[in-house]
């Protein structure tokens, strides 16, 4: 008779050092793992706790400007450089990995209103309150040479915003009117005007590259097609739109930052927003999409940065520091890893886009384990403890208080509506979903 005996050499499974990685014999028979779900739950719980432990999003701070930062622009072809403009007319070029200012010069009299790199990144264009459009070389001038613009165009109208076409040597400015310029011409090749209100922001669609959108001070968003003679359409919102950003992966979706809320729109149907993103307690001043088009970041007058997933109504994360004041501009870097923010108190901050992500290259085993914990968190996301730990954040007092005020206001409205509904003929006060609740006042054809 043959007897089989299970025997193992402890050398095959005991580790002397952490580098001894043995093959672990496993039996996947589900009957042998009766507590699989429970064990995974504990793992998920640990993973989510660790996520909060490691959540340290702040990376570094670039200081040097002597006035509040008005605008920043990221290099379209490189990840390491960044241009920023300030309210005193100064422009600074930064080297992000070194965390130093490479170059600084006074570009405009008054505020630098906008900066935009040209698509190949060889030069950048800036506009200011002095109504001059200046093009600068990306390279530093030689020793002894003076900072001089490559080209400067005197505009006849005030300029508030600039946006460059994704590929062609064409850029658009806004101010009194919307103008399309060719880089080689000193006169606009096209001018759009609809109404008399000033336009404070303009953005080219990065995917459907002939489309543009601008925000006007009469609380409207106007769409243009570069090829057409007239603008396409205008919507008037309840509150003013401060900034608009197109989704880089979804040609027809754009999100605009309004006072308090952000609204995502489908260009093909402007009657109602596709989604409303809450959580800011003050005016949202800036928004930028992540290059994957799955998320976007917004900076606000309430001194916080919030990150949203495009299909959700509430923020995924909130960043703040004690010293960071009102945000003027936020950008998501093109490698989907970092967030750059410029604020009122003259600093540019760099944040991680995912607060607890480990920076730098990962070893395969490490990556596998991180992926595992990530999917565990996803799997058990609806469990109350995991949900609670995942969504818990500390916030400054003024935001907490403002949130309470807003909550009270919202509840008041709700209660009032409920009362009205209770005391009127059934059906006469219908339930209106939030998305259809008159955020868009009018749509002008």
């Amino acid at each position, binding site marked *: 008779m043959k007897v089989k005996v299970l025997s193992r050499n402890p050398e095959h499974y005991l580790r002397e050092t952490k580098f001894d990685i043995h093959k672990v014999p496993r039996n996947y028979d589900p009957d042998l793992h009766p507590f699989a779900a429970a064990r995974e739950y504990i793992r998920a719980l640990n993973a989510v706790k660790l996520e909060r432990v490691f959540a340290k999003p702040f990376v570094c701070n670039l200081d040097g400007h002597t006035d509040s930062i008005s605008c920043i622009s990221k290099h*379209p072809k490189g990840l390491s450089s960044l241009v920023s403009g300030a309210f005193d007319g100064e422009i600074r070029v930064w080297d992000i990995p070194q965390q130093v200012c490479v170059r600084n010069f006074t570009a405009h009299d008054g505020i630098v209103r906008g900066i935009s790199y040209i698509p190949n990144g060889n030069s950048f264009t800036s506009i200011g309150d002095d109504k001059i459009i200046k093009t600068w070389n990306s390279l530093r001038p030689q020793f002894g040479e003076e900072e001089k613009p490559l080209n400067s165009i005197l505009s006849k109208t005030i300029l508030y915003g600039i946006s460059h076409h994704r590929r062609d040597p064409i850029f658009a400015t806004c101010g009194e009117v919307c103008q399309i310029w060719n880089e080689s011409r000193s006169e606009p090749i096209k001018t759009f005007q609809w109404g008399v209100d000033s336009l404070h922001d303009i953005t080219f669609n990065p995917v459907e590259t002939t489309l543009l959108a601008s925000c006007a001070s009469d609380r409207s968003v106007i769409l243009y097609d570069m090829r057409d003679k007239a603008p396409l359409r205008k919507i008037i919102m309840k509150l003013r739109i401060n900034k608009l950003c197109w989704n880089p992966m979804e040609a027809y979706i754009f999100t605009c930052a309004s006072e308090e809320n952000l609204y995502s729109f489908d260009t*093909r149907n402007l009657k109602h927003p596709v989604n409303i993103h809450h959580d800011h307690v003050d005016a949202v001043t800036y928004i930028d999409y992540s290059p994957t088009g799955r998320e976007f970041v917004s900076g606000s007058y309430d001194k916080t940065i919030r990150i949203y997933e495009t299909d959700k109504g509430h923020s995924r994360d909130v960043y703040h520091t004690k010293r960071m004041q009102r945000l003027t501009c936020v950008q998501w870097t*093109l490698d989907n890893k970092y967030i750059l923010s410029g604020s009122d108190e003259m600093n540019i901050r760099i944040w991680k886009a995912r607060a607890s992500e480990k920076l730098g290259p990962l070893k395969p085993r490490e990556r596998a384990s991180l992926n595992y914990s990530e999917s565990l968190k996803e799997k058990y996301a609806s469990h109350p403890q995991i949900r609670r730990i995942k969504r818990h954040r500390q916030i400054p007092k003024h935001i907490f208080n403002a949130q309470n005020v807003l909550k009270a206001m919202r509840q008041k409205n709700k209660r009032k509506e409920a009362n009205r509904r209770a005391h009127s003929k059934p059906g006469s006060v219908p339930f209106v979903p939030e998305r259809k609740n008159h955020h868009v006042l009018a749509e002008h054809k």
Partner: protein
Amino acid sequence: MAIQEDESIYSDEEVDEKKHQQLVDKVLSLNKAQQLKKASRTEPTLKISEFDLVKSVSGKKGSIYLDDLTKSLSKKKNVNIEHKQILNSIHSTLPKPLEKPTADRIQRTVAYEKARLELDRWEPIVTSNRVSTNLSFPLKTEKFKDKEDITSKWRLKTAFDIEFEKNNPQAVEEIHVDIEKEKFTLSKKEILKERQNAAKLRALQSYEEAKARRNKKIKSKRYHRVQRKSIIKQQLKEFELLQKTNPEEALKRLEEIEKVRAHERFSLRHKSTGKWAKNKQIRAKYDKESRQELAQQLALSKELTQKINDGTDSEDDFPLPEEVTTNSSDKDNLFHNLKVDDKVKNFVANYSKYWLNKNEEKIVTPNNIPATCEGSSTYIGETPVVNEDTEKSSKDEALMKSDNCEVISVQDTNDSKIKVNKKKKTKPVRKSTGTSDWDIEVMENDNIDAVFDQLEKKMGNKVEKKLKNLKGNLGTKPKKQKRPAVDKEEKSLLTLPIQKKRPKIDEPLSESLNRIDENEEEGNELTMLSSILQKKNTEIKKVNNDQNDIKIKVTHLNSEIPNHTTIIDEENKSSIEDYIAEAFEDCEKLQAEFDKEKLDEIEKHKPKDVNLNLPGWGSWGGTGIIPNKRKQRRFIIKAPKHIPRKDDNKGFLIINEDASSKVKKHMVNELPFPFRRVKDFEASIRAPIGQTFVPETVFRKFTKPSVHTKLGTIIEPMDKDVLLNKTNS
């Protein structure tokens, strides 16, 4: 006149420009008033600024006179003629142009529509990207795949390879590239021919369409009747022909016709249209009995037409949308359109009878008895056939599909003994000699239902298949169904099923101040007590009522440790009674112990009084002062004496009501969003994804991140190349 004079002056002598300019300047300088220079532009612009214009270019004081310009025209003869011709050709006045706002609006609307259509092109790719579970950025486009890349994969054969190929030529896979096809694209002639063909096809199609439309428009009932009859006639003819040539096909066709008839009959169209029903309806007005009968009939029909709910509740069990569509397309089938004539009915009945008889004959003849199992004949199985052979095999309750020689055993719970030997005996040898593919079933009365169910299923499948075939044969195109009017918003939205089901949670962050609430712990006890007090009255009543009909649901966990029963040693224990007696020797002692334990448990979980008394508050405090008892008592919140417990009336049972409170806070109390059933959600949680529980490859698949990016790589916005059709390359 003035110009002419000027001309004559300039034409006479050549003027030095420079000198002339100097002269002009000097003359001007005599006049002390400042002269504005005319604006000069180098850049072509669309918009002319009012400041750039010279004053009154076309006015009387300006240097250009319109009259002079026209005069110069008059000198040329042909221009004049053309001008006159044009003038003559225009008789009426042009229509008044639209007002500017209206015209602008129209322009904008058109432009917007155009842009909207352009954006619509992105819909599929956006939707697919949204739904996909894992995307790798930067997104791969064809642009990066150059033709050089293919060649880079090729390599020269090594000596080993050549040797290897020599030795076993089968292992070498040869790929032949049709060079002729690769090289030459279509010539111009070929392209033209192709286009011609396409045009012809299109024209043909349009003719057909027009014809169909014309036919459809004919209102005459008679015409349609004649048409229908002729179609039926033709069908019958075809069928007869088919019967002679291919009886199998004919049978199929017959079945099809039968099916159509059945459909027609059980559709609600013929409800209460029979003679009997009509008579009853007429009588119902005056006769109570007939009214009752009619009501009964109605109830019966309702009962029969009610949907049978299986009680299986999983998303997988939902009727597939495909099935629905096939049903709807049934209507388009030719057979459905024609009403079943009596003629046809008779024919069908006769034909099926004929086949039935034929089969029965076959079954009865002793030679063919074994053949019943082999599948040579047909048998429609309501009438039980009593054969020696079948009787023997009936104990097995085996259901045989003769065509595939499969044995499906339908087990009854009562008789668990299935003898393998017998099964083997009845298992037929594959010797299909029959002409038809009809099924033979041997069955018993006990499980006739199961058999019927199976039959139905099979029939359903077959009918579907046939319908498809038939449709293909007849070449009838399914009619375009009228779509219900959909909103503009919904129209454009493509939907794809979610590939990976995970709970989707959209809720605000729970944001708090940096300080953790410390009062929470203190207040806990008080709130508990107050809640108890609130509940107290209602709960006692409730519990008293409920006590009778509390049903405890016993759940069996899969993870339960199996019972290891030990076998009693018969040598030691003479009888079971002794054994039991020994076991319950100290029963009373145990009972007393248990009672005490229960009392302790109850005592432990009793809520205690809460003392809110602050010494020195409202009265003097300190050593030597006895606090007022009455005052103290006022600040004690008393706990209720008796709080109903679940185990109150259950003698030998302690129910720990707090035990679940620890687990409770970890449990999900609401079904998360994409899930519709608790069952599905539980299943999703139960399935492990870890390396410890599933194989490595599966683990990799499960834990693939939804968004993958490369370190230090710029992610460009989506490119228009994605939209291009890549089939040509």
